[in-house]
């Protein structure tokens, strides 16, 4: 069976697994945004905590996924929950880091002017810092999402399915068709998400900054 025959033969499975894959990645990145963006904002007020928090997020990034899975099985079990959790940890760093950089790099004079004119801290954040940092934050979300789509293949190791299922079956069976049936849709998914988020990033860049 050649690769294309194989793909069409398994198309149903591929679509099902791709959908799972997107769900897992989407949830992980969503949680990482919900936690990471406020964290990134909070730490840009204080250089010391910034180093500590980014250091911790950095460590998350280096933890081997299998070891993490092994550790959290007793707590989170198997399936979609632990895989979202682990992918969430991996997704945090780029989002926290870019938010931190985006907020910290807002021209100090703009903030001083805002403050001096009588803008509240919350107004400065909403009207000045966030809009100016948004392209950078979005860049972080984009990097995080694209990396996560690749990394999400490990979800298959803990029973959450996704395109990694095919890849791991293929590896254990020495079956290139199977590996490619997992890898190619993963790559297509990553590239198209990258393109879409790239367009989003462009569209939210304020006109005055282009």
């Amino acid at each position: 069976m050649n690769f294309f025959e194989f793909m069409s033969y398994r198309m149903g499975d591929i679509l099902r697994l791709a959908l799972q894959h997107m769900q897992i990645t989407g949830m992980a990145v969503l949680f990482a945004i919900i936690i990471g963006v406020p964290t990134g904002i909070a730490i840009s007020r204080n250089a010391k905590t910034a180093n500590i928090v980014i250091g911790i997020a950095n460590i998350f990034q280096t933890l081997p996924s299998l070891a993490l899975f092994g550790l959290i099985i007793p707590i989170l079990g198997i399936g979609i929950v632990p895989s979202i959790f682990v992918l969430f940890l991996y997704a945090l760093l780029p989002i926290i880091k870019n938010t931190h950089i985006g907020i910290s790099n807002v021209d100090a004079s703009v903030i001083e002017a805002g403050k001096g004119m009588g803008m509240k801290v919350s107004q400065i954040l909403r009207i000045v810092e966030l809009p100016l940092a948004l392209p950078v934050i979005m860049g972080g979300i984009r990097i995080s999402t694209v990396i996560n789509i690749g990394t999400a293949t490990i979800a298959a190791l803990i029973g959450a399915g996704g395109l990694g299922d095919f890849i791991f079956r293929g590896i254990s069976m020495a079956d290139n068709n199977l590996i490619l049936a997992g890898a190619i849709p993963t790559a297509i998914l990553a590239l198209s998400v990258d393109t879409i988020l790239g367009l989003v990033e462009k569209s939210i860049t304020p006109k005055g900054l282009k």
Partner: protein
Amino acid sequence: MIELKNISKSFNGQMKVVDDLSMTIEKGEFVVLIGESGCGKTTTMKMINRLIDPTGGKILIDGKDIRHMDPIALRRNIGYVIQKVGLLPHMTVGQNIELIPMLKEWDKQKRKERAEELLNLVGLPPAEYYGRYPNELSGGQQQRVGVARALAINPDIILMDEPFSALDPITREQLQKELLTLQDDLHKTIVFVTHDMDEALKLGDKIAVMKDGKILQYDTPEEILKNPKDEFVEYFVGKDRLWKTPELLYAKDIMSKKVITVSLKRSPAHAIEKMKEKGVNTLIVVDKEAQQVQKPLGVVTRRELSHAVTHDFTMQDLMNTKFETIDESMNMVDVLNFMTEKKLKNIFVIDEQKNLVGIITQSSILNVITEAVTDYEEA
């Protein structure tokens, strides 16, 4: 009126940045804080809108202690202009000016009208500039918008932190001029921080020279120039400063007070003797020599006298009554123009009571200039 009463500021218990400083800024006054970097001038200014809170003393605005005011409300009633302008780059010129009106929930129409009015005021036609983004403007244009923004809700007080320092000299001069014109119309209370003495002299009604968190001298530009309180102020003003601003040099500053007078009744021989004795060629004829206060009546020169020694004339007969006097407060530029115009070699300086106080001759002008040049070279 802004009153700073014994205010001090130290950061983290370190050395005092502002040290027991007191000053009063009258309503409608343009006050410049000047000093070298680190002298506490910016800190002092920022305490007025509570960007920084003093560690000691208090600040009153129109008699009210600002500690008890909401800092946000306080700042919204004080215009704020900074060196780097700080326009929001993602908003148009119009949106930038309307920012605080918007936060104060003015209605849209009113906001826009105000922004357009202000743009006209700072010389940026709204039709062209209202919808532009800051990065499409030159530095000077950006700062015009910065000034317009500070005026948006028509505050009584405006704080300006080195607003023109980053601009090129030509633009800077132009904006300084326009600011003065603006101030003539608006009569805001302006606190202006700079390290540039030329700018301070040009703009300030009063100048506060600061060093190490203290005010060394708080005076009008003229006083600062002419009577620097101590060596630092003198050094900071620069001895050559006067010559850079000849409009601030008056007749009384360049005249010679060595006025040799002769009484109406005196003989030519006596007058010549006096000329020899004092080493002058001109005598001023007055009523009585001995008097302290005198009004000039005429002039006699050695040449005129030399023909008349043998005759029995008195000064009254010989003096030339066609002479010019100028007021002691006439500035140097006008004095020189006047002398050139009238082709005068010398000119009398009188005070408000028309009393003679001095004489300006070509040689006296030369003396003043020589002195200045020598000082300049020594410095």
